[in-house]
């Protein structure tokens, strides 16, 4: 593969984040096209790479949003289970420790935020398939950050006296 167009397209695809088997498949298709018509006018490699990146980014972000929502649902279930089986006495008197009070507030807010963002991402991923990929990426990133925040504070709970992991 030493055609200048294919070499340029390879560089542009790599720059657009398309690598591995996906990139090789695209290059093989254009290589076949040029073998059929060496004088074919295929267009600007950078523009083509951008179009592929848009297509792949959208579907990748959709998968990321769906995965994030599934992970969030699992985390939420585990957190509810932890609350149900924990001794929540210290949580009721969270004022005894400022950090515990802050942790309790973040725990509640992060859970709400993560749930709302997760539902939004899931709905968008199924209903609005053509939304720009960067929007999906942003939503998916937001879900992951909120979920990480929630899990972080949940894990911190026993150490700051938020709750006791022992059974009630």
């Amino acid at each position, binding site marked *: 593969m030493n055609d200048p167009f294919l070499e340029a397209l390879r560089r542009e695809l790599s720059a657009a984040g398309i690598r591995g088997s996906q990139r090789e*498949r*695209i290059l*093989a*298709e*254009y290589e*076949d*096209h040029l*073998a*059929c*018509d060496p004088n*074919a*006018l*295929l*267009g600007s490699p950078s523009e*083509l790479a951008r*179009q*592929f990146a*848009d*297509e*792949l980014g959208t*579907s990748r972000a959709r998968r990321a949003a769906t995965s994030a929502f599934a992970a969030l649902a699992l985390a939420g279930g585990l957190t509810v289970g932890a609350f149900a089986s924990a001794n929540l006495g210290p949580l009721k008197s969270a004022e005894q420790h400022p950090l515990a009070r802050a942790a309790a507030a973040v725990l509640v807010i992060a859970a709400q935020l993560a749930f709302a963002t997760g539902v939004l991402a899931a709905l968008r991923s199924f209903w609005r*398939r053509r939304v720009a990929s960067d929007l999906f990426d942003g939503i998916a990133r937001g879900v992951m950050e909120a979920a990480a925040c929630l899990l972080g504070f949940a894990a911190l709970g026993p150490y700051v006296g938020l709750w006791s992991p022992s059974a009630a």
Partner: protein
Amino acid sequence: MSVRAEELKGHLDTMILAVVADEPLHGYAIIEELKRRSGGALALPEGTVYPALHRLERSGFLASSWSTGDGRRRRVYKLTARGRRELGVRRTSWREFAATVEAVLA
């Protein structure tokens, strides 16, 4: 007469589905068939057909597989059952749209 690239927007996917409906084809053959059916009127930016093929495959309207012929590996696309249903919907929608515009312009 030639059809400009911007006028193709929104219709390219439907035309690809229609071309592949008859038989599985590889990318170059799809482009050639588009040109043949349009009598050469489509000023098709050939390279942009491939992103459209990938998009249609990801939407589940096309399926593809490698085939070897003439000593070359080629990606061959065929219409899925979902793609056939989608093509039917788009054909109906286009005919209604074209009839409406024609009625106004006539």
